[in-house]
């Protein structure tokens, strides 16, 4: 695999883009942190920032979207179907304590506290393009680690062909789950080779901070060459399966959303042309790239497949 395609992935710049673009916000955070020092320890919030993070060479060097855009324009129907609903309702998502069940075709199934699940993994910054099926896109500085590293720890059996993910089901607190807009809980899935691909990560943060609720706290999937709905949020269960697992949007509208959902300008969605996209913050639409610009890394996973049929 060519990991360092020159036109796509370049070494990080001297000043991290995130710091540069968000410098005013960081000043505000620094001031807030100073204020927090005056509070008694019991009233201090848990630290929301991660320490210095290495930037993965798999990051793009395109300009990142603002923290505000990334955290106020979300599709997370559990917290409401409007784009600004998730940010407004994020407080309803209780992320501590949080545990994740790992089961199915693994040698070491079990339910693990999030802290224990994350402990062995070194976090890094991954700046990825995200392309929504609704024909808009962003560039997001995630904090995470490869999903494959986690799966290996639990030793998938030879029968593990797919990975199935499940979002928290908590209709008492999550307002969107009280109506059957989708069949709850939200489920997603990947083929084993997709799950083990180095580009596929589990994210726990963005912009160097703990993930906000509206972006899928405390643990979410990020698969940058697929439409955004594949990157399931607020994961409570990871199951390895022999059969292709059901996926939420495919169940809702199979003619519109396939299992693979690879970004593909050549296959239109019935409601939107997928040839172009609006990068949030830009005026003119840009051409959508096959596999969201990650074709050099992932196209070989699908060699011989008819991507018009397996959309």
């Amino acid at each position: 695999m060519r990991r360092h395609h020159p036109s796509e992935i370049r070494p990080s710049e001297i000043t991290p883009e995130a710091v540069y673009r968000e410098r005013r916000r960081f000043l505000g955070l620094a001031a807030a942190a100073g204020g927090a020092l005056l509070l008694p320890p019991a009233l201090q919030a848990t630290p929301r920032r991660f320490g210095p993070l290495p930037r993965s060479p798999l990051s793009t060097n395109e300009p990142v979207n603002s923290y505000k855009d990334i955290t106020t324009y979300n599709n997370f129907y559990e917290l409401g179907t409007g784009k600004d609903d998730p940010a407004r309702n994020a407080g309803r998502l209780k992320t501590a304590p949080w545990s994740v069940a790992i089961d199915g075709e693994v040698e070491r199934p079990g339910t693990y506290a999030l802290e224990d699940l994350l402990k062995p993994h070194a976090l890094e910054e991954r700046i990825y393009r995200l392309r929504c099926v609704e024909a808009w896109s962003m560039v997001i500085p995630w904090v995470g680690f490869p999903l494959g590293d986690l799966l290996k720890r639990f030793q998938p059996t030879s029968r593990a062909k797919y990975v199935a993910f499940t979002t928290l089901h908590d209709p008492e607190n999550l307002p969107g789950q009280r109506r059957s807009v989708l069949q709850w809980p939200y489920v997603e899935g990947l083929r084993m080779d997709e799950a083990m691909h180095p580009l596929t990560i589990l994210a726990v943060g963005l912009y160097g901070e703990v993930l906000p609720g509206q972006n899928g706290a405390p643990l979410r999937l990020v698969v940058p060459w697929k439409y955004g709905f594949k990157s399931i949020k607020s994961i409570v269960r990871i199951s390895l399966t022999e059969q292709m697992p059901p996926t939420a949007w495919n169940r809702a509208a199979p003619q519109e959303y396939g299992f693979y959902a690879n970004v593909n300008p050549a296959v239109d969605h019935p409601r939107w042309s997928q040839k172009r996209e609006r990068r949030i913050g830009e005026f003119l639409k840009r051409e959508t790239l096959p596999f969201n610009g990650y074709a050099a890394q992932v196209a070989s996973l699908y060699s011989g497949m008819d991507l018009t049929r397996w959309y």
Partner: protein
Amino acid sequence: MVLSERWLKRSVFLLCLAPLGWLLAQALLGGLGANPIEAIIRFLGDWALRLLLLTLAATPLRLLTGWTWPVRLRRLLGLFSFGYAVLHLLVYTALDQFFAWAAIWEDIVERPFITTGMLAWLLLLPLALSSNHASMRRLGRRWKQLHRLIYPAAVLAVIHFTLMVKADLREPLLYGAILTGLLGLRFIRR
């Protein structure tokens, strides 16, 4: 009486401009969110549909209450509805698609939600053009027949909204229920 009617129309005229003013204020204050073009298109479409339903409310209101003033506001409301629909289409063409005519044509032909929206707009166009007294006189009885096109236009507009929505159908179905009610109420007189 004449004076008060003039003031009623002036007030309604200003009220109909209020959403546009709000939109401009939000645009200037940066209050339209991360995807302002989408927000503008949705907002203009919402108001085109709301004003269309208000236009269709005049006759049922007269039948239920005997009031005649809603009917005298009908043309104003209808023209404002069309005005918002024109802006809706203009923003889609100019800001969203930036005059990419091939892409626009593909949308119209291949995406049912754009097809229905475009048809609704085309049905409203002759109504707006013939909304003056001269046309009423010239067309005579055919004017009324022509203006019945508002019914299919409103149905298409609601379908346009319904087909656009991915999963949460509450809003378009609410408009659909209101439209059904407004059309149904027309039969109560007989």
